[in-house]
């Protein structure tokens, strides 16, 4: 072996290294393989044995769940483009029957109304591949071969759930005067509501629209309100909790199970600056792990979050000290 190695000079080895690299790259390109691994963020949903405070997004329970901070960027694939929020914090938990996802982001002021044509609501959406544990489909609502299940919470729907619908002229313009509608409840005069337009609903049981899509322009509302959501605005931040049974067995809806995993992506709309539809901030897919590992009891969470910074600093100092003590060997020329 040594004889073979020494028989090739430096030029021969250079040609061999480059030749092998080119051949291997060609092989990988032809086979569609990659010789590098991405290191994506992981959102972990541990098992909670206690009652989940789904209607209380600011309950301390949510703050001690594992969290992932996700960078967002403006949606720039299809018009109308836009998006102004930078970061979203996501948490998840499960209790063997349902999965709960809590998301949190900053917003200068809440926007809770869609009652006029110039008013837009704050909103957040969670997106899953409809079939769990498959490869990641296109981020923008999937494609014809990969359906996406999207849960969209809207602040306006939350206001409707909390206090009843006020999307009418009387609520929006208190001093207006209307003579009267003779057939106020006749569906002929409420076409939006009659055909099931989510914007026209007056009686909402959930602030979340359960949507299914297979690519651009294919977004469809699932009439079954299987996803619940509660959101509250506090100190310049929205926090929203989504809740849904792990499996519901409906086409286009993601079915999950304990110790399962899927991909998940998030989007945020700031209604205050006119964001709606494709004008939104989007994040890339991250992995959602559902685990049967029990949630650590309260108080056992990480005690001091900057500790890893100090650990890194300690590592710096330790390595620096070792190298300072190390005397370089100077070989004779």
């Amino acid at each position, binding site marked *: 072996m040594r004889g073979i190695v020494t028989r090739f000079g430096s030029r021969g080895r250079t040609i061999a*290294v480059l030749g092998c690299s080119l051949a*291997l790259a060609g092989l990988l390109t032809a086979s569609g393989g990659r010789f590098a691994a991405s290191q*994506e963020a992981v959102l972990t949903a541990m098992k909670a044995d206690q009652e989940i405070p789904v209607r209380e997004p600011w309950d301390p329970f949510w703050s001690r769940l594992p969290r992932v901070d996700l960078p967002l960027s403006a949606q720039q694939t299809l018009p109308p483009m*836009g998006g102004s929020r930078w970061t979203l914090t996501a948490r998840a938990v499960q209790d063997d029957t349902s999965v709960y996802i809590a998301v949190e982001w900053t917003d200068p002021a809440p926007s809770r109304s869609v009652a006029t044509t110039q008013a837009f609501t704050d909103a957040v959406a969670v997106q899953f591949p409809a079939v769990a544990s498959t490869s990641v489909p296109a981020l923008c609502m999937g494609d014809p071969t990969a359906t996406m299940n999207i849960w969209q919470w809207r602040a306006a729907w939350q206001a409707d759930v909390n206090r009843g619908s006020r999307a009418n002229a009387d609520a929006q313009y208190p001093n207006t005067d209307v003579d009267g509608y003779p057939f106020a409840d006749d569906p002929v005069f409420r076409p939006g509501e009659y055909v099931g337009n989510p914007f026209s609903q007056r009686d909402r049981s959930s602030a979340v629209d359960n949507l299914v899509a297979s690519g651009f322009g294919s977004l469809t509302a699932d009439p079954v309100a299987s996803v619940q959501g509660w959101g509250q605005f506090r100190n310049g931040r929205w926090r929203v909790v989504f809740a849904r049974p792990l499996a519901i067995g409906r086409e286009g809806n993601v079915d999950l199970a304990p110790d399962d995993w899927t991909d998940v992506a998030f989007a945020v709309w700031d209604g205050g600056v006119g964001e709606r539809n494709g004008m939104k901030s989007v994040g890339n897919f991250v992995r959602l792990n559902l685990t049967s590992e029990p949630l650590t009891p309260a108080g056992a969470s990480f005690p001091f979050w900057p500790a890893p910074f100090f650990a890194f600093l300690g590592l710096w100092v330790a390595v620096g000290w070792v190298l300072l003590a190390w005397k370089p060997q100077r070989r004779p020329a």
Partner: protein
Amino acid sequence: MIVEERVHGVRLDAPGIATSRSRTSAWDGPLETVLRVLPLVGLAELLLMRTFYRVGIHIPKEEPFRTIYAVLTAIGSFALNLSTILAGAALVLLGVRAWLRGSRSATASILAFVAASVVLAVAGPSELGPMARLVFAWAVLVIVVPFLVMPGRVGERVAVGLVAAVALLSSYAGLAADGAVFAPSASPGGVVGAQLIAEALVIVTALAMFVTWVRGDGLRPGPLLLAIAPALALLGLWRANGAITGILVLWTAGLRLYLPVWIYAVALWAFAATAIGWRRRMPWRTGGMVLLLVAGILLGSTYVQGLLLIALMVLTDGAAVGGLPRR
């Protein structure tokens, strides 16, 4: 073929590094060639795969645009694979070189990173991701610290230290996000803060490198004028369509552009001027700066982490591996 050591740029007698003209290796030739080719292939991958491929939705869907797009992205895909393999080869060769020069810690850290990368590529990311990040952080320290503790050359040490700080902050952000794998209840936080600090340090790094170059070579008008082009291009693209420019920069370099864009333009000008300026006297550093550009700051894959390690070894003139080869 005569191979001599290129240690500390033009100062072959600089203290702190084991140097030897007599202990040349037959692997120096391949290493030097790989270090020359890698920045070019990486740049091709960055432009064709990570940039051009991503604007495909804006390419007209009729001929000949479809064919041109398909050919260029296929070349980009090949360049990505070639760049990945060349990066692996460069790391192995640098590890071997460190071994031959008696730098066992550098060999161990570099080869451990290569091993972790291979394991990840074969087994998939999942639970093994933090392992590669930790090995990467270890390798960064082992490569950089010997250079930082050397006497003199303050500007270069500051610049390299800043690059290492960016790498470690970015790794922290990744590790904090990965933390859920090992300790799901541990939520250290600070991910976004670390990324924002790292991005601000990128600006400072570019300026520090510029100062270092100017102190060494003086102000030469050629590089200063040539470097205006990319800076103006950034400003022009930002003005034409800030949103698309922003997302492309995020996806390619990992920068959010959260500071005023003129700051990034100035930093890009300084970075490009330095890279061009070093090309005449210390061309390997130009290659190292190109590798920094290709690696970006998000460091979301073992490939770009490997590029950053190579860039650090080049920018430290191989301080941790016994110098760099030169024909």
